[in-house]
Structures are given as structure tokens and as C-alpha cells.
């Protein structure tokens, strides 16, 4: 998390932290396991009033940032979400709001309902891998007269079952197209998936000849690749900030445990073997904070190294974050793998974020491509 937030940013972070501590303490997070929606509408509306949903949207469209770099401000909320395993479609709603904001005058009504927290959104981008057991037709978006027609399958879609609007990124010939689809539209079938994260809901979504007016397009048909790329970068920055929050929670719990837990007449924290592992964990945790913040700053300012830093953040936090979590579970011993202990609530968030928007290995491969291109130039 930001090392030197401005007073405004710190007040904003602290407000969200207090709100989440009160509304979604660990017992409430556990209870949500059996709640089909995963969060309550009034909880989300209150969060929107605190500023969770408008940071990536211009002021004249109802949004606004604290620092001028809305994405950096948003990482403060995302960090608190991770730290408390908070429910709610923070990442997808902001990603969709940001993209709609770029075409704000075409989608003013939808945008204002998202910013106000009256509605939420999901970004339908991932598709089952060709050749996999779940393989299905990729999403095709074609223009038919004055209608947009959507066909194909997306999965997994975070918050796909609860979102009011679905932003679908599909193909039109050689190009990418982004279109807004009401979840209630005819031809949309939502199949809930099981998830490791008790507070999040994922779905597989089939689009079967879904017909919409041309005004559903976000940007040009076939010209949506750049928007999708930018949306992915935003999503990764938000999910990395969330993961770092979760890692911080796991680490703090485990440090406290090491002081409280006695074995052979001395606290765990006095064993050099464990102390050195804590030092390694502290180092990878601070490294995670550092790269996540640097990537957020680079994306927010459209710096030329933004892609590279985003890949490094996603790869590092995915890989080393997972190791940190498992080390913390190990140090807890048996209680670390029980449902009763809070540890897993945060571990789930970090593990789910590890696989979304590219695995560590995929981002390492991309990093190699980026550096090679630069070396060649």
C-alpha cells in the first residue's frame, strides 16, 4: 500500500477501513458463504457513497478522484478489500465504469447508476480454453442492420450472476468489440460456478443470439482492442492491490501467532529458523507492496513502462504471494487449514486473484517479449 498517502487519501482509506470493519467482520464474511448474492445492495450503495465506484470516472460524468490519479486512489480501497476479504464487485464495476466513462455521453444513465451504487457490473472477458473439457464457442459480436447480436460463452465471469449490466468483450471479424448487455436480456443464460473465494460469485455465461440496439456498443465495432487492453491493466492493478491487502492480513495474523504461541517453553517467534522465514516473508511482502504501487502509478500516469510493471506485479504477487500464504499456513500448523480460523478468508482472495487476468507464468512470458522488443529497438 502507498507509503506516503496524502491526508485526503489517508482519510479516504481510513473511512473505508472502518466501514468494512463494522459491516463485514470475519463472522459476516463466513455467513456470506451461504448467501447466493454474496453482498447486500445497501452495503454496496453505502460503499459507493464513500467513493468506491467513481474514482475512474471524470467529474462531469459524476465521478472524480482525490489525487488526480484515480487508479492510485482506488488501490487504497482495493487494499482494504483484500485486507478484510470484503465482498462486492469492486474490480469489475470499476473496470466497466472506466470504460463506459471513455464513451460517457453514450452511456450516461448506466454510468450514473454504477457510480451511485444503484447497479453493479461484470466484465465478461475470459473464455474457456480451446481444446479444454469446458471448451465452447468464443463470443462473436456481429452487427445486423440496426442491431448488435452476441453469441458464445464466457467463463469464469466474476459477479456475473449479480451484475445488472455485463460488459462483453468479443470478436467482430479480426477486431475486438465491447458491448453492454443487460443481464436480463433474452438469450443470456447464467450458470453459477463454485469458487474458492467464499465472498465472490463466479458464473459461466452463455449468449445465444442476444439482440441489442446499436447503442449497446461501447466504442466502435471491431475497434475495441485498446479499450480491452486498458481494462485488463486496470483490473490487474486493482487485483494486485487487493492481493497485497490480503497478504498483509495473513502476515499480520501469523506474526501475532508467533508471539502468542509457545512450544517447548518459548514463543515461536524466538526460533531462528522461523525468524528467518519471517524475514523472507516480510521481504516478499514489502516487495509486493512496492511493485503493486509502482505499477498503479505507471498505469495511472500512462507511463511507457506501465505494461512491463503490470506484468511484473501480477507475476510476482501471484508467485511469491502464494508462497507467503502457504508459509503462514504452515507456521500455524493444523489450525491453519481449518474453516474456523480466519487465515483462509484472506488466503482465498489472494489465491483467486493469482489465477485471474493471467497466471504468473503467462506474465513472465509476456515480460520476456516486452524486454526483447525493447532490446531489439
Amino acid at each position, binding site marked *: 500500500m502507498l*507509503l*506516503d498517502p496524502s491526508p485526503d487519501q489517508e482519510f479516504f482509506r481510513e473511512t473505508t477501513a472502518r466501514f468494512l470493519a463494522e459491516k463485514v467482520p470475519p463472522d459476516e464474511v463466513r455467513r456470506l458463504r451461504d448467501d447466493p448474492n454474496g453482498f447486500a445492495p445497501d452495503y454496496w450503495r453505502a460503499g459507493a457513497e464513500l467513493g468506491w465506484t467513481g474514482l475512474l470516472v471524470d467529474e462531469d460524468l459524476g465521478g472524480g478522484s482525490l489525487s488526480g490519479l484515480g487508479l492510485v486512489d482506488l488501490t487504497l480501497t482495493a487494499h482494504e478489500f483484500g485486507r478484510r476479504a470484503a465482498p462486492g464487485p469492486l474490480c469489475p464495476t470499476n473496470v466497466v465504469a472506466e470504460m463506459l466513462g471513455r464513451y460517457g455521453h453514450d452511456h450516461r444513465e448506466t454510468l450514473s447508476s454504477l457510480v451511485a451504487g444503484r447497479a453493479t457490473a461484470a466484465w465478461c472477458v475470459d473464455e474457456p480454453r480451446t481444446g479444454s473439457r469446458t471448451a465452447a464457442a468464443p463470443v462473436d459480436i456481429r452487427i445486423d442492420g440496426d442491431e448488435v447480436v452476441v453469441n458464445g460463452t464466457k467463463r469464469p465471469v466474476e459477479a456475473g450472476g449479480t451484475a445488472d449490466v455485463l460488459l462483453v468483450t468479443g470478436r467482430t471479424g479480426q477486431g475486438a468489440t465491447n458491448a453492454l448487455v443487460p443481464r436480463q436480456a433474452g438469450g443470456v443464460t447464467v450458470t453459477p460456478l463454485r469458487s474458492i473465494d467464499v465472498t465472490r460469485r463466479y458464473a459461466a455465461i452463455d449468449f445465444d443470439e442476444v439482440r441489442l440496439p446499436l447503442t449497446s456498443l461501447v466504442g466502435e465495432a471491431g475497434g475495441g482492442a485498446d479499450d480491452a487492453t486498458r481494462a485488463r491493466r486496470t483490473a490487474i492493478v486493482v487485483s494486485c492491490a487487493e492481493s497485497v491487502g490480503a497478504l498483509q492480513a495473513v502476515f499480520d495474523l501469523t*506474526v501475532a501467532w*508467533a*508471539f502468542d504461541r509457545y512450544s517447548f517453553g*518459548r*514463543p515461536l*517467534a*524466538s526460533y*531462528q529458523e522461523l*525468524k*528467518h522465514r*519471517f*524475514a*523472507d516473508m*516480510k*521481504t516478499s511482502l*514489502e*516487495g*509486493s*507492496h*512496492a*511493485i503493486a*504501487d*509502482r505499477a498503479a502509478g505507471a498505469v495511472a500516469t500512462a507511463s511507457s513502462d506501465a505494461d*512491463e*510493471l503490470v*506484468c*511484473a506485479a501480477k*507475476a*510476482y504477487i501471484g508467485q511469491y504471494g502464494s508462497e507467503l500464504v502457504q508459509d503462514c499456513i504452515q507456521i500455524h500448523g493444523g489450525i491453519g487449514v481449518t474453516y474456523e480460523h480466519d487465515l483462509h478468508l484472506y488466503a482465498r482472495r489472494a489465491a483467486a486473484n493469482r489465477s485471474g487476468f493471467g497466471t504468473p*507464468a503467462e*506474465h*513472465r*512470458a*509476456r*515480460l*520476456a*517479449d*516486452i*524486454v*526483447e522488443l*525493447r*532490446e531489439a529497438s
Partner: protein
Amino acid sequence: MTLETSDRAHVTETLDEFRARARAWIESNLERSDSSAYVGVLRPEASDEEELALVQRERDIQRAMFDAGFAGICFPREYGGQELPRAYQRVFDEELAGYEYPSRLQVPTFVPCAAVLLEFGTEEQKRRHIPAILKGEELWMQMLSEPSGGSDVAAAVTTAVRDGDDWILNGSKIWTTGAWWSDWALCLTRTNWDVPKNRGLTVFMVPLKQPSVEVHRIEMLSGSREFCQEFLTDVRVPDGDRLGEVDDGWTVGTRWMFHERMYRNSPYATIPAGTSRGASRMPELFAVARDAGRLDDPLARDLLGEARMLELVKQSLEQRVSTGVATRTMSDQAASIARLMSGVVESRLVTIGYEFTDANGAAWDEADGAVAQRGVDHLMRQVWCIAGGTTEMARNAISERVLGMPRERSHDPNIPFRDVPRSRPAT
């Protein structure tokens, strides 16, 4: 005391103006850096004559930088510096990427030695040495480690005994980089054997080029002969060359080691930023992968991606810790976090380079290009986790001083150092 320069900075040009002036000066005064410089891990140096010529070239560059107003960008003006905010040093470092620079003069002359002098030196000491350092006239070394002590730096047995207005030093120091071509050293000595070890130390400034200091060069397994051991026999040092208080050398020593750990983000060092060989190992690793014919191998590409990831995280963490310490949101002890990360990452990058070479890493020909010597680098890999304090010491500092975990039981607390069991003398 923080790493930030004071707010009485003498700003007469904007960052952009400064950048333009720095760029113009660098382009017309410095050569592009040799693309094969700084690769590998302590590779054998050129002949002594060539090495001395390189040192002289770097002294000349330093002098030229001084004359152009680019030396000591964050040093106080009264000692010949520019007293500008550190953003100006960063800009200069950015412009320097891809050019030759006085690398041998940065560590340890500027950091930690000059930084320690600035903190603890008397007015007279600073006026005598800092301008000379900024002009490239004095190259400094750190006499800290000893053959018998290992990581326990405070267990120094090199002794200083008072003799009128002078002190007489006897003992041996080791792992002094480049001492054979240097001028001065900071030397940590024992001045009191009758108090616990940390309370009987004193720091002196010692000229190296004198008969009573015998410099012996150590050959590393790679063939490098950059490290030295010095034997001090009745070295006479005037009390005016004492740095800090008598028996309070540990106060100086802890700041000394702090500056050493933070050198990459120190406002006192000039180190090219960005993608020069000095700052990134990626050109080097790509060269190995290319020369080994593995640039299209997905396994190799995964490792290249890992290398870049680690490098970026290491850089970002160094920036974070540097900012945290400067703004007091982190304690000085957090420098150990950056130290641990750099040791682990640098050694991993060396392993990745060796991975690309297949069997040719073990047996090569000089015609193999970047593949040659990678095996030796791999054998030298641990240097990154040893030099500048071992990573084990960093782990102790992080767990005990940052996280507040119980300290290891000490076997030498509150007893006179003369009664503390010690290693047998090195033979």
C-alpha cells in the same frame, strides 16, 4: 539524520534545465559505455597497468564532473557540492545511462565513506577530505571486516592504543575492495578491551599509501584480484584523524553499515539508472540466451521473464525502503529488507544465466560469446549474499529489529571484550 538533503537546497535551474545541461555535458564529455562492462560476477580484471589506467580515467572523469558542477549534487556547498534536492541526482543518473562513469569511485568512496564523513566528521575533517573526494583526488576504502570476525563486525580486534597526541594501530583488515589503488580508509578499531565489545570501538581515517600498511591482494576463485587484506603494523594516526568519539565507534559503525546497505538509493552516489548494464542484467541475460541458441525456448523465456520480474521488484523495493527511511515511515533497520532482496535476487539472476548455457557452462571456449564464464559466475553466485553483510545477518535484523522478535541469546553480553571467547587467530 536522514538521507534527504536539507531544505536549504540551492536551486537555480529547473529539473528540465538541469537535465538539458547534464545531457549536453555527458554527450560531449563521456564515451558510450562498453557493452561488455559490468557483466558477470567479479570477473578477472585487466592487467594491473590497465586497471590503474582505468582508475586514472575515472579520477579524470570525476574531476571533469566537478568542474562542470555535476559532482556531489546532493553534497553541501561549503564542501564543494551543489546542495540540490535528490531529484537532481536522479535526473543526472538517468542521463548517465549508457555512458562510462566513475564506477570505482562510488562504492565505497562516496557511499559509505563520504556519507559517514559528512555525518561524523569535524568541520576541519570535512573541509579537508570532502572537496578532495568530489574532485577525484582521494579514493577511500572501508576497513571494517577482519579475518577473525566474520559477520560479527563489532568483535574487531585491530587495536588502537593512545600514544600522546597519536594513536598506534595494529592488526589486520580484510575484503577491502581495491585497496591497492586507493588513498584513504575508514578503519574500525578496538580502543578498549575492558568494556563490552560494542562500547570499546573507535573509528580512524588512515592513509593507505604508507610503509606500515601492507596491502595483500586476495585471488578469488574467479581469478579476480580486486579484494585485499591489509596488515597494519604500528600505524601512527594523529588524534585529529579520529572520526567520532573515543570508544563510541559503534555509533559511527551502525550508520556506516546503514549507508552501505542503502548505496543504490543514496543521494551521494552517482549510478546510471534505467537500462544500462550497470543497472539491469537483462541485456546480459538476453545475450547469453541468444548465444546459447535458446531465445525461442519457452523454458528459457520463462526464466527471462522471471529475471525481469525480480529485477523490477528489487528496484521498486529499494525505492520504497529509501523513501520510507527518508520520510521516517520506516526505521533505518528497514534497509536490511532491501539488502536481503538484493542478495537473493542477484544470486538468482546469476543462476538463470547459467541455466541457459547447458553443458557449455561447465566447459567453454572464449569464442562462445556471452556463454563463456557463466559457470564461474555461478560458482561466485553467493558473493551477492555475503558481501556487504550476509543475508543471514539481514534476516536477523529484519526479524529482531523490524518485526521485534526475541533476539538470539548473546554469549558476550555485559562482559569485558577481553574475556569473550574468540576465533583462533588466522594462520
